[in-house]
């Protein structure tokens, strides 16, 4: 006995006169009066009672639904016709002001709206038809196990084995192995074409940029060389290597070699290597983000933050472009620069590491 005065295990709720569903058991009541324990097994509550639709009972409602569906299909036809007419009748230059949306191209608006009516009319009409007039019966589709019966499986194995024996496969192994070899080898041409269509191997293209010792730093897009004295404090220059002029694949080379040139107060630079690799506070860093390769161009001259616009990776130029925020994992590579005899900025060495995002061999 428990506090509710029932036997342990309690009493299982019984289906009502019309089966489960009519008087569905609420979750907070439980199936067992008393302790709330679980019954041995749940009975299939079956379908909820069928509720007939208005159109099933009333011929006038059915008629009304029919008219609604026909109207929707009619709207669709109207939309399609308007589309066809508008396609030819409205010149592309016409403008229209739509309140709340603004100035828009009349042809675009009319074509879009009429096409929407044309498609939605069919779709909504069909669904409305299905919901009001098409048969509305609940039914159960039984699921059976997919496994064949043991007899059928045995029969299949027997058929295969008999076939093999009758073709003398086990008596004549020469045929068996030469056929296997021929079929196996024939797979290679298919694999070869797929692998070959992936193109040549990248070799060291991912690790190398155009920069080499003595290459002048030139402005993007004018390709004019930069004197060290041109770069005043707070300036930022967008730089390419001078050898880009001779490049056969300008975009590919530019995408790797783009460099950002900044001048800081030399005492603002906190890392000795950064100061050594620069010239009098002028430092050059790869513009390609080490996360997924967007151009990192948002330089804030007061905080010396370099922000990548794609995923907000932030690099601190005073700390050798260390990542201080965002998903990038490694600092931007620095380009070692110096000045040549004429006072122009030149690269003192190629990039020491691969620029841009990480890749497999880079580790």
């Amino acid at each position, binding site marked *: 006995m428990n506090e509710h005065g029932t036997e342990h295990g309690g009493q299982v709720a019984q289906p009502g006169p019309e089966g489960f569903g009519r008087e569905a058991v609420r979750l907070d009541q439980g199936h067992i009066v008393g302790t709330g324990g679980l019954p041995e097994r749940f009975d299939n509550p079956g379908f909820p009672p069928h509720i007939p639709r*208005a159109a099933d009972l009333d011929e006038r409602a059915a008629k009304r639904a029919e008219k609604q569906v026909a109207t929707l299909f009619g709207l669709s036809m109207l939309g399609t016709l308007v589309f066809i007419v508008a396609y030819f009748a409205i010149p592309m230059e016409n403008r229209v002001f739509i309140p709340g949306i603004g100035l*828009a191209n009349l042809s675009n608006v009319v074509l879009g709206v009429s096409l929407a009516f044309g498609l939605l009319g069919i779709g909504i009409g069909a669904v409305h038809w*299905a919901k*009001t007039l098409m048969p509305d019966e609940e039914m159960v589709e039984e699921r059976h196990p997919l496994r064949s019966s043991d007899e059928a499986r045995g029969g299949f194995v027997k058929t295969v084995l008999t076939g093999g024996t009758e073709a003398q496969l086990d008596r004549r192994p020469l045929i068996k192995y030469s056929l296997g070899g021929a079929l196996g080898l024939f797979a290679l041409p298919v694999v070869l074409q797929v692998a070959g269509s992936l193109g040549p191997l990248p070799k060291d293209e991912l690790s190398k940029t155009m920069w080499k010792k003595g290459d002048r730093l030139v402005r993007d897009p004018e390709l004019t060389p930069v004197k060290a004295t*041109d770069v005043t404090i707070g*300036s930022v220059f967008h730089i390419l290597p001078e050898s880009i002029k001779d490049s056969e694949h300008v975009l590919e080379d530019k995408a790797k070699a783009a460099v950002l040139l900044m001048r800081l107060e030399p005492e603002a630079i906190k890392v000795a290597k950064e100061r050594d690799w620069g010239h009098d506070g002028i430092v050059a860093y790869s513009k390609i983000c080490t996360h997924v390769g967007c151009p990192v161009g*948002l330089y804030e*001259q007061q905080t010396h933050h370099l922000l990548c616009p794609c995923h907000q990776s932030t690099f601190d130029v005073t700390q050798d472009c260390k990542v201080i925020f965002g998903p990038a994992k490694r600092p931007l590579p620095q380009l070692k620069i110096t000045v040549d005899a004429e006072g122009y900025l030149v690269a003192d060495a190629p990039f020491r590491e691969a620029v841009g995002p990480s890749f497999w061999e880079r580790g």
Partner: protein
Amino acid sequence: MNALAARRRHPAAIALLILVGLLVTGAAYAALAPKPAQASTVSADQVEQGKKLFQANCSTCHGLGAEGTKDGPSLAGVGAAAVDFQVGTGRMPMTRPDVQAPRKEEVLFDEKEIAAMAAYVASLAPGPAVPDAEYTDGEKGDPAKGGELFRVNCAMCHNASGAGGALTRGKYAPSLRNISGEHIYEAMVTGPQSMPVFNDSNVSPESKRDIIAFLHTVDKQEKVGGMTLGNLGPVSEGLFIWVFGLGIMIGFAVWLGQKSA
């Protein structure tokens, strides 16, 4: 002549002589020395008036002698262009020290007062002068070349159409819509707030004019795409389609899944 000769040993004579000498050398220097573009239009009165205005309105943050405090930078060497830009666009005086100095429609000073303050700040140390009208008139520039320069030098912060964009820690690059050529030029040459400096050897005055021409062309362009959603690109457009496009689809899915009776 006798009167002058009689007084040549007067104690004041030597002081007078020194004064005359100084004035002559000063005038000769002023006449012969290389001068910044604005030097001829700046008078001592203007500098004095600018100093008064500066001390009344700007010195709280920038210090009485514009030497800077912990709330505001020193203005030595920022030049007249910086004053004309900062005050002329309503950025200065700032309401309070903050990460961003927003542009304000209401400019607190008239042109004469701004010019006076600019003259005062320019008198502290040499800096970029207010640009010549020749280089701020977009009509004379080449918008196509300007567009190329803009996409390389400016678009990463200010957006390819000049709509502006976010920077780090609450700062942002402002929209460049409907900004006068003079202010665009001054911003490039002085590097206000977070913006780096684009001096004349980086982007030549002609190229700056091309950029102004590009921006003014964008201003004038008729946009027939309906709602612009701020011209911010995939972020605002993505948000729009996620909210409204998916919202409509979910609505239809709910309707499809509903029991008909």
